[in-house]
């Protein structure tokens, strides 16, 4: 019997130790130790990711799939190896289902343009929700303009949860696609994706899940979810910027035409006609972000070693600690208190605009996000122009929350 790794699956995560893996977190801001609570916007990278990219550039770089020389073979191997790691981590059926993109945004646009533009038309409906990130709204609005399809929006309640009855009622024979966020970046709500998939499949609609916020926080199994597409970004899960993934069900991807043309994605080109490469290359025109893919592979290794369940269990504790401590602050109101919630807390503070909160806590070394979080319809629903948002990751500790609370008390001292 092999000895389980120190942390794996035990529900014990030593955040203070993990934090040492992240060089960017070892610095002072305005003379105070950095407290990074903006991982929902972009997480920091462990040294393992930086080293993997550095090693790749120093030793293995060449273009992929193109050369017989050693470096080209090594680069191809590293790139494809990253694809395999992702495939395993999210339990996809095969590497043909893992398309590298620039990020979540590009993955969603790929589906909209390749699938939607070529097969949707007037009378067809696309269903999204009120809590989507702009990147899961705008591509569908553009698609509706292009095809004459209609965009429907499932409402949310004052806890920041989907109104599931109304969502179900909006799914009908006209529905072609449902696009929903797994976790809301503005509210932290974890959506019942599996239920939504079931309802959509009952009318033969396909489901795209925006998993940008889920990947760093929880275990994702695309086959258990039974979704048709799953999109995410490297930079939110401790990997590099400029790389992301579209998982797509193979049978669907097979039917979809390419959306960008160029090198890498062809089989044969004549001056009149081209035939296209097999999956996944068909959707990866041009030289890809190779080092970034390698970095993302290293980030997956990092997450897998700790174990996504362990991360989720630890963050659930951190979230309840943070929720309780923030509750102590006079005038502070949390926006979004869904029953199922990830470690993201949006809030407002009476007498203090989020922008001022952001500046004052930054002066205390605490980094939070302020603004509309690319979710203007959510701000509109809660009738606030903006919120402040503290988002936690596996490297945050209760001490970080204490620092935030102290900094927020300072905000009240300065402004109120």
């Amino acid at each position: 019997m092999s000895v389980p790794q120190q942390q794996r699956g035990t529900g014990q995560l030593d955040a203070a130790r993990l934090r040492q893996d992240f060089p960017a977190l070892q610095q002072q801001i305005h003379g105070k130790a950095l407290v990074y609570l903006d991982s929902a916007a972009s997480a920091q990278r462990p040294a393992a990711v930086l080293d993997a990219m550095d090693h790749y550039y120093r030793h293995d770089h060449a273009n992929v799939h193109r050369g017989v020389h050693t470096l080209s073979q090594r680069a191809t191997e590293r790139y494809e190896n990253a694809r395999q790691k992702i495939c395993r981590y999210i339990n996809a059926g095969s590497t043909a289902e893992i398309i590298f993109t620039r990020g979540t945004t590009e993955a969603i646009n790929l589906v909209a343009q390749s699938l939607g533009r070529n097969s949707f038309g007037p009378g067809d409906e696309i269903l999204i929700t009120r809590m989507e990130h702009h990147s899961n709204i705008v591509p569908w609005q553009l698609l509706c303009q292009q095809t004459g399809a209609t965009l429907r929006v499932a409402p949310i309640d004052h806890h920041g949860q989907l109104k599931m009855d109304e969502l179900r009622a909006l799914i009908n024979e006209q529905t072609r696609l449902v696009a929903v966020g797994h976790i809301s970046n503005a509210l932290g709500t974890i959506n019942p994706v599996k239920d939504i998939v079931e309802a959509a499949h009952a009318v033969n609609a396909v489901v795209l899940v925006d998993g940008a916020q889920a990947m760093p926080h929880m275990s994702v199994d695309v086959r258990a979810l039974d979704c048709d597409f799953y999109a995410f970004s490297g930079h939110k899960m401790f990997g590099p910027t400029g790389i992301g993934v579209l998982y797509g069900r193979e049978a669907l991807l097979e039917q979809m035409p390419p959306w960008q043309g160029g090198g890498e994605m062809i089989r044969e080109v004549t001056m009149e006609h081209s035939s296209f490469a097999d999956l996944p290359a068909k959707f990866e025109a041009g030289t890809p972000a190779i080092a970034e893919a390698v970095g993302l592979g290293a980030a997956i290794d990092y997450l897998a070693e700790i174990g996504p369940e362990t991360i989720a269990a630890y963050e659930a504790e951190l979230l309840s600690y943070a929720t309780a401590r923030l509750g102590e602050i006079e005038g502070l109101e949390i926006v979004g208190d869904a029953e199922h919630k990830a470690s993201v807390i949006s809030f407002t503070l009476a007498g203090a605009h989020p922008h001022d909160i952001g500046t004052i806590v930054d002066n205390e070394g605490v980094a939070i996000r302020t603004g509309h979080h690319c979710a203007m319809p959510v701000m509109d629903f809660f009738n606030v122009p903006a919120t402040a948002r503290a988002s936690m990751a596996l490297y945050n500790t209760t001490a970080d929350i204490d620092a935030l609370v102290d900094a927020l008390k300072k905000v009240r001292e300065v402004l109120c």
Partner: protein
Amino acid sequence: MDLADLYRDVILDHNRSPRNFQRLDNATHRAQGFNPLCGDKLTVYLKMDGDTVADVAFEGSGCAISVASSSLMTEAVKGKSEKQARALFANMHDLLSGSEDQAPQSLGKLAALGGVRQYPSRVKCASLAWHALLAALDDQQEPARTE
């Protein structure tokens, strides 16, 4: 960095109790200012009497810097000629964008807004009201932006 340099007493005071913070029903000119980055939205109202800013007011929501800047702006331009108001816009632009090393003496209280220069992400908060003022003078239809 010293926060007290950004949140000077004048600014805190004008944020807590903004002056001329109302709608002007008899305005001759009005314009909106919108900062998409932080969601700040405000409307500036002017009542011109010939060449003179007879009355001025603003409404909206924003951060302390943007509210204080709006409030200070209304105080500063009330009773001024259009030409003087435009000149003030230019002086404020220099102060906020840092092209003047020192605030011109003539700026008085407004010089307190110069603290934002150390906080590049906040410069637009301070300039929004001034862009809206200019848009109102120009009778611009589109909301003013700070870009």
